[in-house]
């Protein structure tokens, strides 16, 4: 179960560094990498309209 997805930024470089998301209720950071299974799953859910990734805080 993936919930509350949001891009997060590295506060030092101000660059997007991953996706913050609750996975089965556990706070997690998923790297933006096609090799990562959670990233693949999140992108699949987004494509299916089942999950939205909120933009990172400015």
């Amino acid at each position, binding site marked *: 179960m993936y919930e509350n997805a949001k891009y*997060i930024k590295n*506060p*030092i470089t101000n660059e997007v560094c991953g996706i913050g998301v609750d996975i089965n209720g556990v706070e*997690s950071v998923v790297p933006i990498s096609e090799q*990562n*299974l959670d990233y693949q799953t999140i992108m699949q859910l987004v494509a299916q309209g089942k999950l939205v990734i909120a933009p990172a805080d400015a």
Partner: protein
Amino acid sequence: MTNAVTLASLANSGYLRNRIINGNMAIDQRNAGASVSTGGTIIYTLDRWYVGSNGAATTIQRVTGATTNQYRLQVTGAAGVTNATVSQRIEASNCADMAGQTVTLSFDAADSLLTSLTWSASYANSTDGFGTLTSPTVTSIASGSVTISSTITRYSVTFAVPIAATTGLVVQFTVGAQTSGTFTLGNVQLELGTQATPFEWRPYPIELALCQRYYQASTMTEYHMVPAPNATYASTYPVRTSVLMRTLPTYSFSYVSSFSVGGYTSAISQGANGYIHFISASVSTNAYMQWNWTASAEL
């Protein structure tokens, strides 16, 4: 002829011949032997093994085998279950040499309710590109079924791996309507050759390290002091994984204690061998932040 068979067996009797990781089900970093429900989806349970079911959720648990240091994966059925699967994906770098070869899959299995177990093998459509657990992108190699009983018994099957199957393999075990009772699996081995050799026992530290390439959990609580007074305190805290992981993992956090007054905590600058935890908080007295983490780079 007898000598030829013997030599062939010897040629395939080398150490580390089993391409399955945690085939003896000893490593259970996620649940440490506790039972877990599949919850109607497909989840990783014992290290390297993912389990799913249709119709209803099943319960998965590492159980003790014939001896106290022998373990097996057990699926407990439930009303409404139409099938249940236990699978492992094998990274291309650990099995590419099997392409174009004949291999043998051997395993211990038993079922207290059902009498048929289906096995199958597939390969990823691109290097380590197996797709998601719910939508796999694989090509079938072979499948079959064996008759099983309530008595744990060792089985073996042999099949040819296509020359194109250099991209990673999947082995899967499927039982039908496990509406009650248990399906038990253990000592799974996939090896080159036409004969099943005895299950390869590997020392626990080696097996654990092999598993940690794909999943690992902190073995101690990370502990970071936030000194006061500071209107806003920001710091970074490096965390290293035990072994280099397969790829950039997902880092998950369970906070033992935390603070949120203007606080911001998260992983930044993730790597395959650790991450930097960024902490930003405002505290009036010395404070401590404690958390546990897991890292997942499963296929």
